[in-house]
């Protein structure tokens, strides 16, 4: 075995793009990247969307996804250049020496075939193992990856197991042929935070036990810090910084890396509750039409003027339903909601205009929250016209003021949403909410779809606007780091109930209930050895019980 498993030199990757209304043209998306990977080591590739990290990962298997083509440089695996080899050699490499774990296991498994057949397919096809050996190996891997009923899970179909389990099956699929290198492409991104930590630990253990090398691709520096030996930071297809994990996390050299490391470290001092809450939710219970269980069970929370209440929970906890109930989209089956001293009517059509105006909402997907056929000016201008009857120059002036407030400035009024970046879109949505001069804005996962640095910018903007406009936020999120950054009080939700509620300092301080403990301890921290500590702690606790 050579001492370098994967050697990449001057890798350039191009793609053909089809801009609307123009001729298609070729662009370069990766501009000459170099790195080495020794056997058994893990290299983390990190960057925001569009950094080219997945493309680089797939290039190590001589694969270009949908119109992507490797245009220059060399990629050597075990001393052989894979880019200049013929298709036959490339096929012998894929699935045997290098394997792949994708972000969405649910889509990557063939729905019509049993899991076992798919997990062992490459190992058998590449003549690495006999069918019997491969199946034994698969069961062993299922056990190692902590899957329930490892002997029999292989006979199930992909839709019969949960998302987190399927992601582990995908890891088993990649490890089964005993490859030299596994490419992990955002393997935990689609998972809930409490599931993510288990899968992450399972992957890390499997890598250690099998001695396989790995390329670990993610946008989350805290995650990659837990599993990798080296980290390469990428931005727009070029290397920003490349070093050991310790150096990148603890002594970053480049500004961009520093920003990534210090992301989520916004400091926000908790405000004290007042006597008159702007929003009071009392004993609210709700269910969707045609179902027979309550998605919200007896919810009681308060929010004070100019403050932020963070509602935290995983998917299915009912946190977004709470927003629908408050806005009147889903009338509660029980309970009352008081807004600024007035009792809100349960359903939307019966609410007076002032209630609607003072209660605004910002959505997770800014893309779908703006009408693609309206300009930014129309989008922000409509509430001004609708609520305040502003017209002409007066309206223009106010639109510009709002654009300045969200730090966009001149020249945006006539643009369409499709011409804006993700962060800009979300800012326009904020401006639309502010235009109504609301007392409360419900923010539903407003930063989840954004890259970390962009999300940081949005959070800072929201905090700043809160100071200026004295607006309260009901902030719905699954991300505890975000909560720390902006909340004054916190409600933790689990299966339709508020399991913990109070000022931030109290909610985030021990003693914890079980769920909050699990949730808090599952959020990856930007430090080495965090994963081991958490796992060790959990083992100790369960041993202690």
């Amino acid at each position, binding site marked *: 075995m050579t001492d370098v498993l994967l050697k990449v030199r001057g890798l350039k990757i191009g793609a053909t793009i089809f801009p609307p209304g123009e001729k298609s043209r070729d662009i370069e998306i990766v501009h000459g990247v170099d790195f080495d990977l020794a056997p058994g080591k893990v290299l983390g590739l990190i960057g925001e969307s569009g950094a080219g990290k997945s493309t680089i990962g797939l290039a190590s*298997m001589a*694969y270009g*996804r949908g119109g992507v083509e490797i245009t220059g440089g060399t990629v050597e695996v075990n001393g052989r250049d894979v880019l200049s080899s013929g298709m036959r050699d*490339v*096929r*012998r*490499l*894929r*699935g*045997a020496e290098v*394997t*792949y774990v*994708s972000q*969405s296991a649910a*889509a*990557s*498994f*063939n*729905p*019509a*075939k049993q899991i076992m057949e*798919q997990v062992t*397919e*490459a190992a058998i*096809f*590449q003549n690495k193992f006999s069918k019997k050996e491969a199946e034994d190996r698969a069961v062993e891997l299922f056990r190692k990856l902590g899957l329930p009923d490892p002997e029999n899970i292989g006979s*199930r*179909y992909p*839709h*019969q197991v949960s998302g987190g389990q399927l992601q582990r099956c995908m890891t088993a*699929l990649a490890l089964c042929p005993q490859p030299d290198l596994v490419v992990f492409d955002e393997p935990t991104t689609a998972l809930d935070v409490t599931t993510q930590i288990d899968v992450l630990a399972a992957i890390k253990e499997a890598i250690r036990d099998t001695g396989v090398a790995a390329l670990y691709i993610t946008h989350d520096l805290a995650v990659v810090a837990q599993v990798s030996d080296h980290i390469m930071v990428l931005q727009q297809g070029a290397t920003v910084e490349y070093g050991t994990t310790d150096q990148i996390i603890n002594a970053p050299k480049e500004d961009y890396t520093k920003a990534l490391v210090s992301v989520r470290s916004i400091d926000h001092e908790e405000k004290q509750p007042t006597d008159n809450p702007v929003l009071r939710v009392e004993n609210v219970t709700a269910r969707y039409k045609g179902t027979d269980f309550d998605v919200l069970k007896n919810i009681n929370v308060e929010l004070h003027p100019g403050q932020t209440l963070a509602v935290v929970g995983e998917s299915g906890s009912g946190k977004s339903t709470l927003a629908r109930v408050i806005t009147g989209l889903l009338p509660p089956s029980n309970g009352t909601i008081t807004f600024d001293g007035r009792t809100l009517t349960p359903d939307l059509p019966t609410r007076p205009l002032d209630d609607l105006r003072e209660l605004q909402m910002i959505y997770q997907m800014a893309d779908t929250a703006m009408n693609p056929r309206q300009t930014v000016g129309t989008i922000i201008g409509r509430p001004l016209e609708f609520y305040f009857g502003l017209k002409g120059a007066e309206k223009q002036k106010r639109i510009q003021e709002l654009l300045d407030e969200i730090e966009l400035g001149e020249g945006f009024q006539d643009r369409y949403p499709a011409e804006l970046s993700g962060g800009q879109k979300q800012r326009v949505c904020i401006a639309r909410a502010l235009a109504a001069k609301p007392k409360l804005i419900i923010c539903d996962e407003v930063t989840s779809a954004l890259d970390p640095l962009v999300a940081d910018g949005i959070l800072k903007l929201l905090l700043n606007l809160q100071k200026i406009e004295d607006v309260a936020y009901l902030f719905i999120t699954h991300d505890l780091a975000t909560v720390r950054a902006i909340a004054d009080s916190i409600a933790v939700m689990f299966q339709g109930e508020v399991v913990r509620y109070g000022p931030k300092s109290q909610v985030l301080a021990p003693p914890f209930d079980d769920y909050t403990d699990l949730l808090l301890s599952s959020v990856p921290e930007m430090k080495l050895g965090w994963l081991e500590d958490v796992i060790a702690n959990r083992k100790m606790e369960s041993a202690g019980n």
Partner: protein
Amino acid sequence: MHPIIKLVAQRLALGLLLLFAASILIFAGTSILPGDVAQQILGQSATPEALENLRRELGLNEPAVSRYFSWLGGVMQGDLGTALTNGRDIAESLGTRLSNTLFLAFWAAVIAVPLAITLGLLAVRYKDRWPDKVISAVTLTTISIPEFMIGYVLIFFLSIQLPQLINGMEFLSDGARNWMLSNLRFSSVALMNDSMTLIEKIKSITLPIMVLTLVVLAHMMRMTRAAILNVMQSAYIETAELKGLGMLKIIRKHAFPNAIAPIVNVVMINLAYLVVGVVVVEVVFAYPGMGQYLVDHVAKRDIPVVQACGLIFAAVYIGLNLVADIVSILANPRLRHPK
């Protein structure tokens, strides 16, 4: 009970319900429409006695609901009534015509289905390259011309021009020309009778088969192409590629099991379409099938015949769509292997 059996049973019941509703619609369409049907049939110059006789014969003096149920009751026992124009039993006249129509549709399907799927696969294999482009250009043309015109274009070139062309080939020996003339003869009239052998029958309907094939080929191919592309762009195909599997193995093991349901769906929808295309093609080639029978009697305003034919066409159409539905259910792994 396995949920899939329940689902299939539900679909079957729904199909029957639909057929029942369709029979009401057909009956209503011919009975409750504005205007005096008897007057329509006999024209303005009809005598009052003739009108009264026809009304009695049609049972128009009875309420529509009771007429409908006596009609439906007859249909269920295989009694389709008698034709107004010649007083013959409709079921009897329909028998051979229906089998002729099915014969034509069957052979058109035998040729069109494999051809369409093969061409669809080719279009996917050479996506965005010239075979794909040629195929989609031809497709676009054939769906832009009505069936009967394709028929006449083929008659014009193959039945009329081709023999003249062959006669004009003086460089060929007389023997060769005669051989070609007798073997490349495309009849513009599709005769059909019991004394013909199978080969003679098929020869007689070569042109109608070609027209029907062209008519459904385009749609079927386009839809097959879309269905296969949809499967081939799935992430699990990429997974298979990244396992180092060859293209053929990927198609056989991973694409095919998932493409089968959409393709069967495409085929069924187009067979249903073909059954309708038959109506026009039969008229073009004077083929003694159900379509021609229907069109003739629409012009003669022979309502019982129209009702009977309409019901049979609707039944075939609903039946084929039902098969497509059921195949989709059976092929869905989520339904076959419930949690």
